């Protein structure tokens, strides 16, 4: 096939897109919206995963102490913990210090702190660094049994919870994305079917003047690919700017939440979306051509 023929056929495909204005718009926007939803879900899942594994890799156990613990009891507790196997470092955080940390994090006049007022609801706590990932769980278990310990928090638990959420989200995501893909496929299928009907005179004439099968099919096929890719392009634009914005505002307001950095993530997302759009467009139109275009 010659390049200029491809150019001509591409032009024909573009003509079809414009001529079917409303229908093209419908399929492009369906593809765009579907891919936006799909990509958002995928990015959410990726981020939850990332948060979970980041937390998992932090070897810290947080221990909240019972209120009203005497100075001696506290010292004894700290010594006991320090002596444990797998404990590398123990740090005592007083309730005043904890409050100060919150102030630093949220800013002096945050609504949250206003609600707290002058009272300090925070307990004293210990921050224990374990020697390894394995040790974290053991230390957490044993510390929990000690006198004067009210609650043990370690990231493994949070991480496990997040992993479960991620798994759930993945299953839902796969379902939703499959449905969306089927929807995209159907609308492109239908759009191409309409073009084929609209152009059946033209197809008849093409056959008459000796057009080969692929010459007749290619513009329709390209039309589908074009619809899919343009829709995907729109989705990519939304996702790119959307995620960059979200990542920036999360970094501003929830700096402790370890989101994936926007670059190069959005570039991968863009490439993936464009490929997906083109493939779905191509599949949808091929399917339609097999059923409705007799050559």
């Amino acid at each position, binding site marked *: 096939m010659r390049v200029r023929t491809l150019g001509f056929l591409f032009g024909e495909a573009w003509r079809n897109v414009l001529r079917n204005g409303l229908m093209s718009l419908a399929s492009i926007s369906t593809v765009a919206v579907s891919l936006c939803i799909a990509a958002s879900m995928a990015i959410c899942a990726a981020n939850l995963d990332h948060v979970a594994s980041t937390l998992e890799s932090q070897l810290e156990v947080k221990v909240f102490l019972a209120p009203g613990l005497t100075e001696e009891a506290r010292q004894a507790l700290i010594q006991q913990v320090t002596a444990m196997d797998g404990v590398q470092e123990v740090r005592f955080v007083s309730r005043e210090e904890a409050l100060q940390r919150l102030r630093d994090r949220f800013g002096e006049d945050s609504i949250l702190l206003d609600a707290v007022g002058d009272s300090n609801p925070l307990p004293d706590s210990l921050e224990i660094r374990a020697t390894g990932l394995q040790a974290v769980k053991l230390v957490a278990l044993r510390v929990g049994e000690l006198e004067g310990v009210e609650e043990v928090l370690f990231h493994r638990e949070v991480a496990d919870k997040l992993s479960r959420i991620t798994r759930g989200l993945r299953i839902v995501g796969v379902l939703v994305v499959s449905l969306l893909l089927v929807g995209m496929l159907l609308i492109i299928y239908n759009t191409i079917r309409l073009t084929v009907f609209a152009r059946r005179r033209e197809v008849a004439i093409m056959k008459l003047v000796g057009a080969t*099968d692929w010459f007749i099919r290619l513009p329709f096929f390209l039309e589908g690919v074009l619809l899919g890719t343009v829709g995907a392009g729109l989705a990519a634009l939304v996702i790119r700017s959307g995620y960059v914005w979200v990542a920036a505002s999360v970094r501003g307001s929830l700096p402790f939440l370890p989101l994936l950095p926007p670059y190069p993530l959005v570039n991968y997302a863009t490439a993936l979306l464009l490929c997906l759009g083109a493939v779905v467009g191509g599949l949808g139109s091929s399917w339609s051509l097999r059923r409705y275009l007799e050559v």
Partner: protein
Amino acid sequence: MIRLERVTKVYDGRVVALEDITLSIHKGEFVFVVGPSGAGKSTFVKLIYREELPTSGRVWVEGRELGRMPRWQVPHLRRRIGVVFQDFKLLPDRTVYENVAFALRVTEASPREIRRRVPAVLELVGLKDRARAFPNQLSGGEQQRVALARAVVNNPAIVIADEPTGNLDPDTAWDIMRLLVDINRLGTTVIVATHARYIVNALRRRVVAMERGRLIRDVPRGTYDHES
């Protein structure tokens, strides 16, 4: 060049359109196919450009038997045959120039070739100054001339016209017929299926007469009806 041997065509297993037709057409001939509606004229020409395949019997065009021709070769056969219809079959959203160029683009002709050939055939059919017009801005005769230009722009060996003057007034019909004669003079085989008795009788070319699917008469330099 074209040969039908004992060709029968039955549609849907019931309607007999052609029955046991045997006939040859040589290179450079001008042939009228005449007969009342439903006589099988259209089926006859469709067999030649392989729009239909015979139910039995064989058809050769330029030495190739169409029944054995693989599908992918059919477009190449059609490029050797220009076809003109009663209803012109032009693309309404393209200019005269583009309608004619379309047949060349299909063959992947070079842009230079297209720029050379299209004005030349438009000149031949006398529509050089209407190149930018759209089909609905043209008269029936002009539209048919565009269709004719499209049929010959590929330099086909054969031109088939199926009732080319059916929608035209007599004067315009004569214009079209004269063009077909001109095209034939340049060496192209021309086959015209027609009702136009006055044209057939005036031109005195080979006449193949059909009735109810049968070949009833084949006369060189003949007339529409039996010579009495």
